[in-house]
């Protein structure tokens, strides 16, 4: 998809190009609703809007949604493949390893915090193996799960490996 098309699709869905897949879904459903029902906003200028025009707009909304969804799934696919390769030979998922994978996947902590709703400082502590500052196991486990899923890693494997270290630390009597 070239840049112009890309921009146009986002514009059709009335989004900026920073929009996330979740926002795209939401915008699509909203717009579809507006242009397929008798919205007051359209009735108020019914004289100027023909049925064909509304149909045309609906079609453009569908097209843009499809194009963007396909693009995101292709992108997602590429990320998953790379993540698989990066994680292939790793037995121990400690903080440093996770950080390296995240950086190779070009994911920022800020983006991750925003999307996973895990506070940035927890993510930093995970990557630093800073067990003392992480919350109790049940929460840390949850954060890790989100972390791993966000990077398209095998979440179960990551959690199991990381939590083994975390438990060892706790058993040492620090907690």
């Amino acid at each position, binding site marked *: 998809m070239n840049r112009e098309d890309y921009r146009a699709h986002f514009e059709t869905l*009335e989004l900026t190009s920073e929009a996330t897949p979740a926002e795209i879904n*939401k915008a699509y459903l*909203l*717009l579809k609703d*507006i*242009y397929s029902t008798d*919205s*007051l*906003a*359209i*009735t*108020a*200028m019914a*004289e*100027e*809007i*023909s049925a064909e*025009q509304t149909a045309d*707009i609906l079609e453009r909304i569908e097209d843009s949604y499809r194009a963007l969804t396909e693009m995101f799934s292709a992108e997602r696919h590429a990320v998953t493949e790379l993540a698989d390769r990066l994680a292939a030979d790793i037995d121990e998922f400690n903080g440093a390893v996770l950080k390296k994978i995240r950086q190779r996947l070009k994911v920022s902590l800020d983006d991750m915090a925003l999307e996973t709703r895990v506070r940035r400082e927890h993510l930093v502590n995970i990557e630093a193996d800073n067990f003392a500052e992480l919350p109790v196991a049940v929460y840390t486990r949850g954060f890790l799960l989100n972390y791993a899923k966000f990077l398209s890693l095998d979440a179960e494997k990551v959690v199991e490996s990381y939590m083994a270290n975390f438990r060892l630390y706790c058993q040492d009597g620090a907690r």
Partner: protein
Amino acid sequence: MESDREHSGRILAVGGGKGGVGKSFIISSLGMSLARKGRVVMIDGDLGGANLHNFLGVSPPKTALADFFERKTPLAELIVASGIENLGLIGGMIGTTGAENIKHAQKKKLFNHILRLEADYILIDLGAGAHFNTIDTVLLADDKIIVVTPEINSIENMYNFLRNLFFRRLGGALGVHGYRELAISVWKERQELGIRNFKQLIDHLKDISPELHRLIDRELAGFKINLVLNQAKGHRDIMIGNSVKSVCRKFFGIDTLYSGYVEYDESVSHSINRGVPYMNTFAASRCARCIEKLADNLMAGRQVRIS
């Protein structure tokens, strides 16, 4: 118009076709909210029907815009205390001169004085209707706030206001480049040309020449309006703001931000009638919180988040 000036205050103007949609309530409440952040000067630009003082709970100012036009009093000297800290008021004109009677030179002078006012926020309340003096004042503002209610008449009037607003701006730009007559003739022949709406007219003009295309694109790019939906009685009403925004973007091609909605509250009219400022008396109400949110959204260029 707003790009070639230097002033420190941010100008917010509220217009919108229909009377009684809550323009004065919204702008006065925004003023009270912004007065906690900086110095606010509020101008009652509803010439002929000035009553912004009622919303602030003060009596009509003894000096007003009439003095600016008739006695040549500098605008800054017309600011009176509003009873609210950090908020000064410039009264309008009651029953004397309507917006239509302001001469071009007077208007230019007024705008120059507005731009030179020392304030962080300059808020201008405007009367109903789409007279070109009202339109020009909205065009002067950094934030062009348009208020609608969830009613078909209000939305219709708002579209009309928007058409006038953009044409006035475009007309100015086209006039400078000698395209004004062309635009008018296209509009006159719209039926034959199969032009049904604003967007189609714009597209038609753009196709005429590359220069015109660039010119229109430039005007459209710098043009943004802020939509506010007032008197919302629930989720359905709030969503109407979203559809109006979408129509403005798709059929007018105008960058429209849905900056906020304000929930209906019958205490609003009670407050106005009793002469008490709503924002102070009902600071914790849902409606007051909507105003606060609206003020934040406007300042940050954010929109209503639909959940």
